[in-house]
């Protein structure tokens, strides 16, 4: 009897969490999926309209803009965060005396929401009061930094602020990875006469492969979900120059009273996210079990 009970306890312990997730995540996704096939406007409605919302969605220049911006923003953000994160981790890993001081400085932006830092960033980037203005006051009259007002460049200011927020976190991941490298491998390389540069390039960085992968997954999903950032910095402007899928989805669902189209864009976002995450999870779980 006691053994039977012991068999059930683990599953009993797990089941509330699993049940919550099943309902609150997958149930809700299914519900949104259903709404995307209806003519819902201000509140959910259950009139089936087939693929109409998807057809309208892909005809909207606004949506294409959001998707294009995501491609630019996402690739730059992931690339710069990874490179910067790795660079900082390597630099910090050189027996730096002030490491204990520097590390939290690099990490802290992750602790703050853009609701908090948005005003400061907006200020900083605004040519009228921010960096440009300050440089002019300091006597550097020709200094120009007005990207946030320029519809070609505004999306890059979003990248700058986003990198500021997450690169420290990526640094921590790489630092953890570097500290996990077996020192014997490095010693062996040094005995073979390899330079520091070669050691990193040939041996250590290749060993960081799993960290790159984890960082990619974390950053990719942050990029697709990016919302507060844009709202706080540019509100999607100038014009629609910095709209992203998340801001698009919010605006169609909640301010334009076109919940059906909003739901269809949410489903496209989900498909994008899942197509990145599922292969990763699959390979992780495969190797994870055998370890």
């Amino acid at each position, binding site marked *: 009897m006691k053994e039977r009970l012991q068999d059930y306890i683990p599953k009993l312990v797990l089941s509330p969490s699993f049940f919550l997730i099943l309902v609150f995540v997958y149930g809700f996704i299914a519900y949104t999926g259903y709404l995307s096939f209806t003519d819902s406007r201000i509140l959910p409605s259950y009139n089936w309209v087939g693929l109409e919302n998807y057809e309208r969605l892909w005809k909207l220049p606004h949506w294409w803009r959001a998707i294009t911006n995501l491609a630019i923003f996402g690739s730059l953000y992931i690339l710069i965060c990874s490179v910067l994160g790795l660079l900082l981790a390597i630099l910090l890993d050189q027996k730096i005396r002030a490491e204990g001081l520097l590390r939290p400085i690099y990490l802290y932006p992750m602790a703050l929401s853009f609701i908090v830092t948005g005003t400061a960033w907006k200020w900083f980037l605004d040519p009228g009061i921010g960096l440009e203005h300050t440089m002019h006051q300091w006597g550097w009259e020709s200094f120009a930094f007005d990207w946030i007002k320029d519809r070609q460049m505004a999306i890059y200011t979003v990248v700058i602020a986003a990198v500021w927020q997450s690169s420290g976190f990526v640094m921590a991941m790489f630092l953890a990875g570097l500290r996990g490298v077996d020192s014997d491998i490095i010693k062996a390389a040094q005995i073979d006469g390899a330079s520091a540069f070669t050691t990193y390039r040939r041996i250590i960085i290749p060993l960081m492969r799993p960290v790159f992968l984890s960082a990619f997954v974390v950053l990719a999903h942050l990029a697709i979900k990016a919302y507060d950032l844009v709202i706080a910095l540019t509100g999607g402007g100038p014009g629609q120059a910095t709209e992203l899928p998340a801001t698009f989805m919010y605006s169609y669902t*909640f301010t334009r009273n076109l919940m059906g189209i909003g739901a269809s864009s949410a489903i496209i976002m989900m498909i994008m996210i899942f197509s990145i995450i599922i292969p990763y999870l699959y390979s992780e779980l495969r190797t994870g079990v055998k370890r």
Partner: protein
Amino acid sequence: MLRKLMIGTVLASGLAALAHAQDGGRVEVLHWWTSGGEAAALDVLKKNLEAKGITWADMPVAGGGGEQAMTALRARVTAGNAPTAVQMLGFDILDWAQQGVVADLNDVATEEGWDAVVPDALKQFSKYEGTWIAAPVNVHSTNWVWINKAALDAAGGKAPETWEELIAVLDAMKENGITPLGHGGQAWQDATIFDAVVLSLGTDFYKASMIDLDPAALSGETMREAFARMEKLRSYVDDNFSGRDWNLASAMVIEGEAGMQMMGDWAKGEFLNAGLTTGEDFVCIRFPGTQGAVTFNSDQFVMFEVGEDLQAAQKEMASAIMDPTFQIAFNTVKGSVPARTDISDEEFDDCGKKGMADLAQANENGTLFGSMAHGHANPAAVKNAMYDVITRHFNGEISTDEAPAELAAAVEAFK
């Protein structure tokens, strides 16, 4: 520690529930007037209600001209937990009324004779299928231009009455080395100017294009002219306009950095707060070519369906909003004019008096129109589709020649 906190929460919420049960009169108000003068103005209403023993539960959600508040409202209504009253604008009111979740105020309205004192154009939103559902607080008109008097004097001194005169003044201001037009590059601000520009091309044209959404008017030659005027106005704006809040644009005019601002009458509050006097330090005129017509928006408190225990307080609140003394107190602070036509203009300044006279005149002549930019001409989906085209054009993403066709197509897609 944790347990103490949790017990604290339970206790606190229990006590709160008890407190509410005792007096019975409680209104929960969802609004986005969260700071400064607006919040102070609303506080007048709160005090009036408190004097009647009604508790005011404040539920402010700021952001994006009420966008966040509307999201919160959706969550509240979906949860079956609607607030008593919600600040709302234009077509949003009708959209919610269609959902069948709003209250019926007919008995208060009949008793106090609202039908006789509220202009028809406003009733279009305060009533749904013959039932009063909302209490209008004010009428803002949006086709105003606010001019710095010193800058105007330096530019010839005569307030412009036609488009050509306006351009002449703007050119003169440019030569005088200031930014002629103080403007913030946000979609709704671009659209506010667009509203006035369209209206200046004729009241019939405004009605055909913005309200009836006639495809021929939307894509026609007159619309091209409207976009051409927008392009012209764009050349008087400083480089740094994008994303600027409207009150910062007002500040530019106040400080003489900019010559004028094209903005609704809420801008007046900024000028008065800065210690400026109407007529002496700044001038208010209708957008050149729109004298006699008014595009308006009206803040209303929509009453939602609530439990029977809360209905008495809800009706008290509706009645308190329509109270003439409150309408005067609120609107003198907010810069708008009262939603009732039977209120004396004595306590209002020159611009306020002009606003009230213009409103009455436009109401009589049938030239009082809902503002497209502020959601009083068409539903949110159409409004935003127009915003998209207007703001893309203003930012140079599409040309003046392409814009009318784009506008017609965008409207068609969401009608």
